[in-house]
């Protein structure tokens, strides 16, 4: 069988999975990554776990069937945008952990009760940086050429066939030609200009949690060439993060999950949403969006001493004060605004149940439906919150073979994998640990993993 020449655009989990699969099948593979070597790996560098269908295995605490996984997926995303692709990913997810393990990824096993394994997700040692580094090391052994600092700048189509692509090198552009092209370049989450279409000025206040290199250029080029789009257009997955964190690449550590334990106010010192809404696991993602839509994209979560230790530790220390008045001053909120809000909230608390979960507050127009602990024990603390964008939803449509679907039909030698195609499965919402699985499955399918 003659070897194919394959070019892979991107340098994260999807691109690497595709490259490994394709090279193992004897193809001649070149991988072009926009980032320099030390910043390689895209958003995949910031991950830590995968969610996959499995029987009982040593990486998780129990079995998790394809149907259950599918139900969980539906509960966050509503309807499946592209059922045949979604079905394939769900079913093939069963092979992901085994494949990763066979390619050098070590999963955490239960070590005498010190690790709390989850049933649905398997955690790998060291997280995403180890994941991508392991794969890159493997590429060396497989003789895959990796071109760093080589962003894709144009794609030459002839009808439904890709003729060649152009990448930007230090000293000018270079045209590359191959038999097949796999686009695995993530979304456009790093591109503030593009995001500005949805948030105008406010976009500057949005923190990008992952890489700064996902500018979405390949996605844009495919759009311009008539790719069918899928996934919700406006923005993406957002969580509440500490406003003091760097604008890019703070990864998982900047998130603040104290919200259920206190109240959250806007820059006018007023509450704006039910902090106790019981919608786990969606709650996490919802607060980023809520904050993105308020003035200055800024909020404060206010808690008291009792809440400390109930949520994950934070990178930055909270602001703290002995009285709400002082806290209000430190935060620069209008005089008596926070004071009034806290008083109303405390007054309206209903502690009828012995279960904290059932405590609620109806002290203002906006209720807090669960976990309504009074905020009355000094010191009082506040974390400043900004929206933290994880990834964007919109991407390109593919078919079961991983090929790109254009308005006129299927591209014979163009594939898409990973986040750029995740809209086929998750048009909105997010299922923790599923991003890597989508990348692994679609990457390998594009790389030649047979479909039956």
């Amino acid at each position, binding site marked *: 069988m003659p070897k194919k020449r394959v070019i892979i655009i991107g340098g994260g989990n999807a691109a690497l999975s595709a490259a490994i699969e394709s090279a193992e099948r004897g193809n001649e593979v070149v991988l072009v990554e926009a980032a320099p070597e*030390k*910043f390689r790996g895209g958003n995949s*560098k*910031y991950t*830590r776990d995968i969610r996959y269908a499995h029987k009982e295995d040593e990486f998780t605490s129990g079995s998790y069937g394809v149907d259950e996984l599918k139900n969980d997926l539906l509960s966050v995303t509503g309807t499946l945008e592209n059922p045949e692709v979604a079905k394939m990913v769900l079913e093939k997810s069963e092979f992901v952990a085994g494949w990763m393990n066979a390619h050098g990824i*070590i999963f*955490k096993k239960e*070590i*005498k*009760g*010190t*690790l709390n394994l989850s049933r649905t997700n398997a*955690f790998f*040692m*060291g*997280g*995403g*940086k*180890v994941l991508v*580094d392991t794969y890159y090391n493997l590429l060396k052994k497989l003789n895959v050429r990796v071109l760093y600092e080589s962003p894709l700048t144009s794609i030459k189509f002839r009808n439904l066939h890709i003729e060649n692509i152009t990448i930007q090198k230090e000293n000018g552009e270079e045209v590359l030609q191959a038999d097949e092209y796999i686009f695995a370049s993530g979304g456009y989450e790093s591109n503030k200009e593009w995001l500005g279409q949805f948030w105008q000025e406010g976009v500057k206040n949005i923190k990008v949690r992952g890489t700064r290199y996902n500018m979405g250029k390949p996605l844009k080029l495919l759009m311009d060439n008539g790719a069918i789009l899928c996934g919700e257009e406006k923005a993406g997955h957002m969580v509440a993060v500490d406003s003091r964190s*760097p604008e890019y*690449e*703070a*990864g*998982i*550590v*900047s*998130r603040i999950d104290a919200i259920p334990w206190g109240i959250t106010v806007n820059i006018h010192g007023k509450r704006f949403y039910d902090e106790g809404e019981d919608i786990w696991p969606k709650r996490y993602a919802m607060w980023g969006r809520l904050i993105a839509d308020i003035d200055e994209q800024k909020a404060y979560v206010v808690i008291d001493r009792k809440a*400390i*230790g109930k949520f*994950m*530790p*934070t*990178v930055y220390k909270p602001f703290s004060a002995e009285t709400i008045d002082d806290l209000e001053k430190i935060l620069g909120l209008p005089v008596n605004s926070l004071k009034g809000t806290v008083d109303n909230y405390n007054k309206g608390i209903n502690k009828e149940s012995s279960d904290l979960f059932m405590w609620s507050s109806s002290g203002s127009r906006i209720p807090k439906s669960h976990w309504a602990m009074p905020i009355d024990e000094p010191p009082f603390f506040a974390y400043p919150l900004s929206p933290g964008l994880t990834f964007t939803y919109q991407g390109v449509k593919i078919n079961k073979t991983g090929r790109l679907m254009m308005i006129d039909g299927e591209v014979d030698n163009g594939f898409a994998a990973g986040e750029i195609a995740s809209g086929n499965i998750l048009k909105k919402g997010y299922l923790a640990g599923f991003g890597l699985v989508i990348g692994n499955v679609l990457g390998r399918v594009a790389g030649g993993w047979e479909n039956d």
Partner: protein
Amino acid sequence: MTEYSGVNEAIRQLSICNACRYCEGYCYVWDAIEMKFIIEPGYVEHLANLCHDCRDCYYACPYNEPDHAFKLNIPKTLGNVRMETYENFIRPKILKKVLQKEGIITLLTIIIIFIASLLYISSRFGIYNFYKIPVTSVFPVYLFKGVSYFIYLYVAVLWIFEGVAYWNEINDGKHMNSMGIFKAIYDAINHKNFWGGGTGCKIPSENNKYERPVAHMMVFFGFIIALISVLFYPGIISGYAGYAYFIGSILLFAGSIGMIHIHMVDTKGLRSEKQSAIDYPFTVLLFFVGFTGILIPISVKTYIFNWNFLIHDVFILTLFILAPFSKFIHPLFRFLSLIKYRIDTGSS
């Protein structure tokens, strides 16, 4: 609570880790950190001494210096704190100077002890006749054992002072118990924290896995075997204790070569420089102890035997005299932190 510069930097870095926890599973540090919401100075020292410097967390971290705004390098930072712990808990305090200039002081100690023994030998036997004297006349059993026991006692007493001071800093009001001690001994023996939770130790480079744990195990067991067999003097020259001593010396020799090799090829700049400055003289000294130890049975009945035996003892004496103030104190702090960890994690 004692405050030091390195500790504050470590608190900054470890607070980021505590919000991240991706490194969970590599070593006890990551389980220990999860027990605290806020990390305080005493606890940082405890974490630093739990760290066995395998660098797995460094290679796993996306937030490392110099490229990321968070500027992390956990192994290096914890190495700096370990140094500060040693300096802070050396008793008598003034002798922390030894640690700060460990290389040169080790050399001077060797020279002084050697000259002193030359003087003793020349006055008793004459330098030229020395090689002919039966070793048990040069080092009569009572003298040899007397000096050995005295020196062990000396180290034990100072270690107790130092250990108690350290324990008081880290114990969080908890009492030592035998379960904790036994489990800590178990951890020390099987080098629990050297293996990166099964992923290996990335010193001297990212591609290594077992070089350092194996080298350290050799030194560790070699030393213990030699230490025990010495009690059978003069049996260490012949007989079963002699074999044991020979094996111990070989392990020490080979292990210290491994450790020296690691030092020479180690990825520069990733390590705490202060740590390297105390590691190196210590390993070189162990190398000479091992080397001269191997020569003992080999040189029996040759004219170098007595000289080699003397020099061997000079190295050993240096090692023990400096034990409470040199790199040699690291097992003490490690061990106490392992005990604390085992007590904190309870019966699991």
